[in-house]
């Protein structure tokens, strides 16, 4: 296996506070990699920097051999990195089929001239997009909503739509930002199963998630962040038995006695 996404020495500070203080990790092609850590550990900042939604201060991001460091979001997407968002983002007032088609259109060869002339190239592109959309909709089990406006779906269903949209153009890596946060427990299993199937079909995922059980069940490789630093890295089993990880989640016992002395002094 080779790394499809390599992140080296990622740094980002807001007003002097380090959100990321030199984080490096790699995502192997064909793997599911988890990125976990407690609140404020820098996970979201990391994927925002990788996907071009925030400027990084320093570091290097390489996607399938191409340096994409500091490029704008739509360039990075076109280079083959698709992402979802923590608070679900879909086009509420467009149909499910349109939601998926838009995610694909930047990746086919048809131009607007082709479209106006309805050339063969345009028709083939639409066919390919449609076939892919049908397949993905079947996978997420929303066939009966194919022509319905996405706005009428539930929160969990919208998360599935966002996932399907990210997969539309056969990206090299799909970055999922909290795919199961706020989703019904019964549905979490469905999402887990869908991701596993997609992975077996060759898709590569980088998943940021709070739900450690979900990550443990699914991921081949897990990276743990804490306070902007990489705390641990390894297989799910290794991470689960690493005491430092639990420490990070539950917090270290602060030196309260010491602090008391400081404040009374």
């Amino acid at each position, binding site marked *: 296996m080779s790394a499809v996404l390599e992140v080296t020495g990622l740094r980002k500070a807001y007003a002097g*506070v380090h959100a990321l203080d030199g984080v490096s990790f790699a995502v192997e092609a064909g793997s599911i990699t988890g990125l976990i850590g407690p609140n404020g550990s820098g996970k979201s900042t990391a994927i925002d920097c990788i996907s071009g939604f925030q400027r990084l201060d320093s570091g290097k991001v390489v996607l399938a051999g191409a340096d994409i460091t500091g490029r704008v979001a739509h360039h990075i997407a076109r280079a083959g990195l698709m992402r979802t968002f923590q608070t679900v983002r879909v086009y509420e007032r467009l149909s499910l089929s349109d939601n998926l088609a838009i995610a694909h259109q930047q990746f086919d060869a048809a131009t607007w001239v082709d479209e106006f002339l309805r050339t063969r190239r345009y028709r083939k592109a639409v066919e390919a997009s449609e076939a892919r959309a049908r397949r993905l909709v079947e996978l997420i089990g929303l066939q009966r909503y194919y022509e319905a406006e996405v706005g009428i779906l539930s929160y969990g269903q919208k998360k599935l739509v966002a996932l399907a949209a990210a997969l539309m153009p056969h990206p090299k890596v799909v970055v999922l930002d909290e795919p199961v946060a706020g989703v019904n427990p019964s549905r979490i299993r469905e999402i887990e199963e869908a991701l596993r199937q997609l992975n077996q079909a060759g898709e590569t995922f980088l998943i940021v998630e709070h739900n450690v059980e979900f990550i443990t069940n699914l991921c081949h490789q897990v990276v743990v962040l804490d306070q902007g630093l990489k705390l641990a890295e390894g297989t799910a089993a290794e991470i689960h038995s690493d005491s430092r990880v639990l420490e990070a989640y539950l917090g270290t016992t602060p030196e309260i006695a010491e602090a008391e002395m400081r404040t009374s002094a």
Partner: protein
Amino acid sequence: MTDLALELVSVTAGYGDNPIVREFSARLYAGTITTLIGGNGAGKSTLLRAIFGTNRHFSGQIVFKGETIEQLPPWERLKRGVGFVPQGRCNFPAMTVEENMKMGCYTLPAGRHVAAIERVANSFPMLRTKWRTDAGNLSGGEQQILEMAMVLLVEPTLLLLDEPSLGLSPKMQGDVFVTVQQVARTGVTVLVVEQNVRGALLISDRALVMEQGRLFMEGPAAEVRTDPRIRQAYLGGNIKQTAA
């Protein structure tokens, strides 16, 4: 620990059409510190906002000092003694510490401003050293303490704290926890949501554990601290399934 400070009766609250906290019932006792814990998205912040009144209330009752307050706007609840320090930076960054403190007195009659500021500034000596500094130029920990001070000016009897130690160094976290303890010693009831669960439980009397918007477990802080299910609340997905 018998005096009731706040009673939540089957509270359902959230945003828009989306209830996040569902039928949540709990009691807080006067002068105690209670920690509210639970995984991300469990509805902790939503519950605090519901008690202060800055989100949508669907059903249930919030009883404070023998009065139901769930229909009151936030400023009325503040006048009755419910103080809330939201998550993240919640001060006026382009105003000095002094001006921020004066804003904290907003609901007090003008005659009491000077005495209130004097009283609170005495318990937070750090503030005096930065009196003319813009709040936006303070460190994260200093801003957190300023925010708590701003709410304490009106002498609330119930203080709701949302992630007071988030983004602070361990040393500053310690200072914030000690401050919370000091506040509780003056008789204020505290309900705190904390990412540093261990630190929070160390200073707390009781703990409420939330899962999927509902109350999952409650008990004395010391017991909850050693309960193995807490580990699962953070590292596992669905407590009910794994616990069964």
